[in-house]
């Protein structure tokens, strides 16, 4: 693309077309990698702990319940307050929240025609690294009470 010098003096305009090409490429990249579904499940303010023995994500599980726990041992769920693992009322609320979610998940799985999907639901616990072990354990045992059988702890892999 040879753009000859424009005839006649000061009207030197930068060629924006290649720049625009590059920018559009970048936009395409970010558009394809963006994942809107995850945005309401993944809380950015939570700092995950680092582990190297962790395994990559498994995409076959259909029903996943994300539980974000902040550094004070509270669950962060949109539209719910005071889901605190350290108080009795909080635990009762978490329990009812979990059973509601499980019920919905089971209904959705029952509606799906794919028989293989049955029983494929799990909780993903994204606990902040400053949370205490007892909070995490408490949450897992609440999940157990609610009827969840599989769990995952989310961690950051060391890049």
């Amino acid at each position, binding site marked *: 693309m040879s753009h000859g010098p424009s005839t006649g003096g000061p009207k030197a305009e930068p060629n924006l077309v290649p720049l625009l090409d590059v920018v559009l490429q970048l936009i395409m990249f970010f558009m394809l990698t963006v994942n809107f579904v995850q945005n309401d499940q993944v809380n950015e303010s939570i700092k995950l702990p680092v582990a190297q*023995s962790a*395994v990559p*994500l498994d995409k076959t599980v259909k029903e996943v319940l994300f539980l974000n726990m902040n550094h004070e041992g509270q669950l962060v769920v949109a539209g719910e307050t005071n889901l605190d693992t350290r108080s009795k009322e909080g635990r009762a609320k978490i329990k009812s929240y979990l059973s509601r979610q499980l019920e919905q998940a089971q209904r959705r799985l029952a509606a799906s025609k794919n028989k293989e999907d049955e029983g494929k639901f799990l909780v993903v616990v994204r606990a902040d690294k400053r949370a205490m072990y007892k909070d995490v354990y408490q949450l897992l045992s609440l999940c157990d009470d609610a009827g969840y059988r*599989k769990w995952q702890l989310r961690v950051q892999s060391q890049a």
Partner: protein
Amino acid sequence: MARRRNAGDHADVELPITPMLDMAFQLLVFFIFTYHPSSMEMHIDGNLLPPQKPIVQGKEPSKSNEPAPSLKEKPPDTSEDMVVIVEAMTDKDLAGKDKKEREKLVGTPRRILIQKPDAAKPDLVCDRTDDLEQGKEKLAKQLQQILISNPNASETAIDIKSDGDLKHEYFISVYDICRTRYGVQNKGGKEVLTRIDGNHKEKDFAKVLGFQKVGFVAPEGLADDKNPAQ
């Protein structure tokens, strides 16, 4: 359609690029800010006990071959399992320190001990005279030695018994050390262990050592809402 034609020049049709570029930049900024590389997140798998049917750890009929830690409801049978005990710094240990230091240190490991299956008393691995990295190193060394000295050690289940006040971060790093797998290489008649991470693959080694079953033990003083006494 009247074509504008400058006298003597070719047709000069030009797209208004600048507003388009402005829009493109706006879009770019939006997508950069919403970008979240979720592939950076990995997970640790686990199973909860089915009701009234406690399943032996690691023998879960799961589809993946990945052994999973399970929550144990009864205290571990110390005659079979190896127990890694992690004690946490509490406010009591830090009396006399100023507030800033207390906030920094509370919830860090104070002592790490290993209770071997046939030992009467747990062995001390590290305490506060070591800093955190040294402590982790010592724990890793101890576990390596157990793996080397006993050919069946990989079958031994580890239970991590941690104080409830330990921060999640440190709990995960202890878990991580327990789950580390080592490839064995023979170098000049001596066995050399290499930590298997992203740079190595298990099939590159003739022999791989590592504890398969790592479980969590309930911390003491966990609130139980089903028990009216608490």
